[in-house]
């Protein structure tokens, strides 16, 4: 189902699958204690909005693809009872955390009985990029004709990674020789790769500032996003350059901010999409890097304790080869791009790997000095990405769909929005999708 191998060939369903409706819940920095704002509650909101947006009745939906993991890294304490009002508000499954600290198809269907004709369900690990690709494939394969793809995030109080094994003076974990055990900061491997990048190609951390500033500016024009809703202040280069270090050369603003939110998308056959309320956005292909093990999608295996810059670059280049082949396009066909950015430095790897705007390795920082805005010739992340709207990994999908439909509002790029790439996550574990205004 996931096209992770080299030489994947042109996607067999190229142009025959379409996205139409988009639905977002509100956002919050953390769960505020209101059962309606739980990850389950907000997933219901997102699904209803997506169906309304597409003009699709709930009983027309016959497929549901979700990610069951909803944690930003924060977990509900095992010895803390679930809030009684949450338990009373929603139909429960056998798992008491369902709808609260995780999400199952069963929970959604129990609490949305109006989705009474769902016949195909699939649970996908982790990321919206994987969820969307799985839904595209399922529709293309004829397993579902009108499918909802959904992803939710919960963000409880507390710092992720604090406590538990990290509070002990011993380390019995499986990764005891790698960065997560010896450093703990998730951004460290990418920061270390970027230190090598500066050593190899030249450049400085400050040269990322135009990208960060552009992303936040675009994010503030994303009404569905966290910063537009809660912190609508522009970000300056000085803000970026003076932010505290987390793992130098990565500072606080190179890290995306966890939030609580949910999003849903309506995916259908291209034929079915013709009757929907929004203009169809056609899927030309999907592909990426990683390996599957049972139901899991795992990163590419590499030798050594930490992935090197060269390995990241090789994976980014492989991603480009695969997605371009899958979609039967070249870099010059891209009107814009909305690849993953949380950590922001991933975006450099993706841009250079894709050869976006003719970029080669080591050229992205100089490229950021040019006009990368939504009004320029080479729009970079018009969604604003996670940097611009908080950690969800879905802003690229929402923006790419809206740009191609011509309803991105103040974010609408000046040049025609015809073909674009979106998705992620990091180079060695990713699925990208190419979306288009025409079926090809």
């Amino acid at each position, binding site marked *: 189902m996931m096209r992770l191998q080299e030489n994947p060939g042109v996607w067999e369903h190229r142009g025959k699958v379409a996205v139409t409706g988009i639905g977002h819940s509100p956002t919050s920095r953390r769960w505020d204690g209101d059962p309606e704002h739980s990850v389950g509650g907000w997933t219901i909101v997102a699904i209803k909005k997506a169906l309304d947006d597409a003009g699709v009745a709930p009983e027309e939906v016959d497929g549901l693809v979700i990610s069951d993991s909803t944690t930003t890294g924060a977990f509900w304490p095992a010895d803390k009872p679930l809030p009684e009002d949450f338990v009373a508000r929603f139909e429960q499954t056998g798992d008491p955390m369902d709808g609260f600290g995780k999400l199952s198809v069963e929970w959604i269907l129990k609490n949305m009985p109006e989705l009474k004709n769902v016949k195909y369900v699939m649970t996908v690990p982790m990321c919206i990029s994987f969820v969307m690709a799985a839904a595209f494939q399922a529709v293309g394969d004829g397993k579902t004709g009108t499918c909802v793809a959904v992803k939710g995030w919960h963000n409880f109080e507390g*710092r*992720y*990674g*604090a406590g538990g094994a*990290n*509070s*002990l*003076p*011993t*380390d*019995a974990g*499986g*990764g*005891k*020789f*790698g*960065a997560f*055990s*010896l*450093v*703990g*900061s998730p951004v*460290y491997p990418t*920061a*270390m*790769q970027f*230190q*090598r990048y500066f*050593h190899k190609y030249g450049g400085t951390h400050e040269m990322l500032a135009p990208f960060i500033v552009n992303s936040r500016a675009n994010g503030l024009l994303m009404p569905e996003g966290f910063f537009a809703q809660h912190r609508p202040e522009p970000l300056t280069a000085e803000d970026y350059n003076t932010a*505290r*270090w*987390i*793992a*130098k*050369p*990565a500072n606080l603003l190179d890290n995306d901010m966890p939030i609580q939110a949910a999003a849903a998308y309506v995916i259908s056959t291209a034929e079915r999409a013709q009757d929907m309320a929004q203009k169809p956005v056609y899927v030309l292909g999907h592909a990426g890097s990683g390996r599957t093990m049972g139901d899991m999608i795992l990163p590419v*295996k*590499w*030798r*050594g*304790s*930490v992935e*090197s*810059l060269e390995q990241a670059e090789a994976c980014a280049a492989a991603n480009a080869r695969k997605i371009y082949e899958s979609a039967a396009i070249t870099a010059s066909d891209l009107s814009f791009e909305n690849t993953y950015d949380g950590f922001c430095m991933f975006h450099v790897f993706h841009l250079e790997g894709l050869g976006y705007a003719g970029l080669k390795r080591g050229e992205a920082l100089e490229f950021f000095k040019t006009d990368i805005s939504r009004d320029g010739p080479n729009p970079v992340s018009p969604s604003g990405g996670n940097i611009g709207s908080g950690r969800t990994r879905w802003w690229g999908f929402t923006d790419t769909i809206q740009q191609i439909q011509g309803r991105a509002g103040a974010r609408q790029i000046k040049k025609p929005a015809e073909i674009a790439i979106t998705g992620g996550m990091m180079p060695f574990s990713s699925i990208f999708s190419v979306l288009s205004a025409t079926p090809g």
Partner: protein
Amino acid sequence: MTRRSPIPNDLDKPFLDACNEDRLIVQYCSACDQFQFPPEASCNGCDSADNFAWREVSGRGTIYSYGVVYDTPIASLHEDLPFNAVVIDIDDCPGINMMTYLPGTPVDEVPIGAQVDVIFVPTAATGQKVPEWQVIR
């Protein structure tokens, strides 16, 4: 640095036992002619354990890159913030890197490309030794 004491498991016990003897050993697959680290049950290249064995290596290496850590959820490291976290390419093992805090080198003065040599340092909680690297002066 107050590094946590690794608790050996079946996979990494040979490696950690060797550290206690001031020796650095790395898994090697003779079929693929490649080293592998961290320890795994089978070779990443051929997915087999048939030609997998531990090999002692010199431990000399080259500084590949680093970061300076200012924030970590690992409690035992809090008092040492900020600190260097350095990646070493192991000279005898092409494609293999390992991590060190690079004792003896001031924070953020890590010389990428410099030659380093391994030392074995006891950890606080159990006394289990772990490899660290120092710049060869």
